[in-house]
């Protein structure tokens, strides 16, 4: 037998035994599952979305409050203006009456 045939004969695969298969399957079963691995980024994504929505709601509420304040300020300004206008009008009327002797 030449060296190559001798090598092929000597190097025939050797089976490690049935226990090896069982150990592999046990190790595979103990390895982190892909679903579990996916759950973590999914949870992170969900929390990011929830935070974004929450922040959006807060922003909206803050804007509403600012709007309300602005409205109140405008109303107050208008009231002040209106009152002042009334006062000026009353003075003008009084002044007119005094000129006319009424």
């Amino acid at each position, binding site marked *: *037998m*030449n*060296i*190559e045939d*001798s*090598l*092929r*004969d*000597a*190097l*025939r*695969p*050797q*089976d*490690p035994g049935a226990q*090896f*298969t069982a*150990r*592999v*399957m046990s*190790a*595979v*079963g103990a*390895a982190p599952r*892909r679903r579990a691995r996916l759950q973590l980024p999914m949870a992170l994504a969900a929390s990011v979305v929830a935070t974004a929505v929450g922040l959006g709601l807060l922003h909206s509420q803050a804007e509403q409050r600012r709007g309300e304040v602005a409205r109140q300020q405008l109303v107050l300004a208008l009231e002040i203006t209106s009152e002042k206008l009334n006062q000026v009008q009353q003075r003008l009327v009084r002044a007119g009456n005094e000129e006319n002797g009424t």
Partner: protein
Amino acid sequence: MSLQFSPVSGPLPGAAAASDTGAAALRPAPAAGHAATVVDLARRGDMEAFARLVRTHQARVFSVALRLTGRREDAEELAQDAFVQLHAALSQIQGESHLIHWLLRAVTHRSIDRLRQRERQPRLVPLDVAGEDIAADQVDPLSARRLQTMLQVLPVPARAVVLLRYQEDLDPPEIATLLDMPLNTVKSHLRRSLDALRALHGGHPHEY
């Protein structure tokens, strides 16, 4: 022992031209159609199908690890790791040939890495290769034992090349792809290893 690629002077005489295809695909195992179905099932999460794949290929994977590292304990661990990694990578496996290539590549590279780690530490235990089981139908058990032991004398890259050539029957282009080694380097390792083994073992001269 570092993996140094040595320059080569040319193709080995008598090398089959058909093997110089550079193709990465390996020769399919017997009953490839049936095995491909098992791969599909395993890819879909069928654990029994995966167990069948393990039983089908554990001998080759374990033997490569054993004959590279020389230690049964390391070989079992490395072979087991290769299959655990395979299970995680099943979605990438495209069929029987690809699966075999993937396993051989994984266990060979891991075994070589293990040897590199071991080289940094003093050797405390003897090699287990002498305790390798000899098959009942081995043609020449004494010769087989001697060759298995002599294999450990070869440098690691050459040892890997010889194993893949004569245990797995891969041709040089397939070995080059699997080991990420230049084709001429593979052929050089084969030529020199055969010369060395022939000189140590005796036997009839044979032109490769």
